């Protein structure tokens, strides 16, 4: 579960990436975070993973209060998250199996647990027959599925994906989204950043739209609303502009 309350984030160079964001993501939800490039989506992700600290505001992730968290505790907070990136971030010289096993080894799992869990997760993402291959022998979609397996292997409470389909063609993208949906149905909370409207609108899910570091809409109405706001060029007026329904 994520609780953000009036969070601001200004980078050292003065750029104010997040300007008063409040949101709650409950356990078991599937949420899309959408917005144009530079709107602050990745900054939200980095705040949640503890990569950057908020300038002000409250931030609680899976019961860890990130305002109070000690550097020593941060790794344990991160173990409750599974993170996926656009560029996969696999270790090139390790095989598919080793890439996934690595994530377990790093948190101190025994060889026996690793031997049991890794094949199960690879099966889940449909890569049972490619365990011994190296990442560069796989297609982009397959590499992203390895990354998803790695994110899942330690049984996190929540999967956070920053543009997981950004490098993939549309049919692969759909496969990845369907996989994330399946993972969500198995009980894991999923937060996915994307700016692919087509894709978002194929799923009937909660969509949080962000622009200029502010939430401009939050609801079940798909990406379309947000897009129209951006086209009109209206500066978001906090929560007012939320549910402006427009005919398709």
């Amino acid at each position: 579960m994520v609780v953000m309350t009036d969070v601001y984030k200004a980078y050292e160079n003065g750029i104010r990436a997040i300007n008063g964001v409040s949101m709650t993501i409950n356990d078991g939800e599937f949420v899309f975070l959408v917005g144009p490039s530079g709107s602050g989506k990745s900054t939200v992700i980095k705040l949640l993973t503890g990569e950057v600290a908020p300038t002000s505001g409250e931030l609680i992730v899976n019961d860890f209060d990130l305002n109070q968290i000690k550097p020593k505790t941060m790794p344990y907070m991160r173990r409750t998250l599974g993170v996926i990136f656009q560029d996969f971030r696999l270790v090139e010289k390790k095989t598919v199996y080793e890439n996934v096993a690595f994530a377990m080894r790093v948190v101190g799992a025994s060889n026996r647990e690793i031997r049991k869990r890794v094949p199960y997760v690879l099966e889940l993402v449909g890569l049972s027959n490619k365990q011994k291959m190296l990442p560069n022998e796989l297609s982009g979609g397959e590499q992203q599925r390895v990354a998803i397996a790695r994110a899942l292997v330690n049984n996190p409470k929540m999967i956070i994906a920053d543009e997981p389909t950004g490098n993939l063609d549309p049919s692969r993208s759909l496969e990845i989204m369907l996989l994330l949906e399946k993972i969500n149905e198995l009980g894991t909370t999923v937060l996915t950043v994307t700016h692919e409207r087509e894709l978002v609108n194929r799923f009937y899910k909660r969509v949080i739209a962000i622009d200029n570091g502010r939430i401009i809409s939050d609801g079940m109405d798909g990406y379309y609303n947000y897009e129209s706001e951006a086209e009109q060029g209206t500066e978001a007026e906090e929560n007012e502009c939320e549910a402006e329904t427009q005919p398709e």
Partner: protein
Amino acid sequence: MKQKRSRNKIGYFIKEGASSIFSHGFMSVSAICVIIACLIIMGSFALVSVNIGAQIAKIESDNQMIAYVDDVLSRESAIALEDDLLKVENVASVQFVTREQAMDEFLDEQEDPSLFDGVEASVLEDRYIVYVDDVEQIEATKVALEQVEGISDIRLQLDVANGIITARNVVMIISIVLIIVLSIVSVFIMSNTIKLTTFERREEIAVMKMVGATDSFIRWPFVYEGLIMGLFGGLLAFLLQWGIYTLMSDLIGAYSIATLIDIIPFRNMIQYVLPVFLGAGFLVGIGGSLSAIKNYLKV
């Protein structure tokens, strides 16, 4: 269960550490060579200084002055001088030698004693052989002995003692300076070699952080990498030092007045040299790896 896990982990750390040593063979070999060179330079100076120290101790143990007794004194008063001499600071012991004993010893040393047939013992003086505690104070002791009434003259081989002391001090200072400078150089080189690994593995480190590895877990493979290189360098340096030392002492033994210099056999020093070399390798390894990795553990 817990124990099994930690054994499991240590195996992983060592494997990771060792594999990255091999994956940058050239850098690792150069780092190990630098450690070996530094250790051998330090070790050689230290061993030379130990040998000079032993030499000084040997001189000290039989270092003697000869105090000549004034001719005008009777044999009895000459013998009575012993107490006065022993009162002088730094005097360890004295031994009275009559002019007749001195003459006999002198004649014994000559190849052809008949040359001195007509010479009377009376040309010599009664004398004391004076042994001192601290050879470095010998000059002051000499001055003090000259003040003793009934002593006409003091003779000593001060030049040799002074020369050796100066040599030891110089070697000792050089050793200390070298140890400091070369330790810094070794740690620096080691640190840069491991930085190369951390740089190559920066993405892996980022992944480890992302999935919740603790800092100490991330640090260990690099520490083992440094440790393996440091200990390996220390061991090789020890073996090389052994060879060089034995070779040098054989050469010195063959080409010099062998009785003058006693070289300590290497095997008598193994118990000190081996732990020092391995310990130095250990410290350089740990120091280098910790300084290499610290920048990566900030986020």
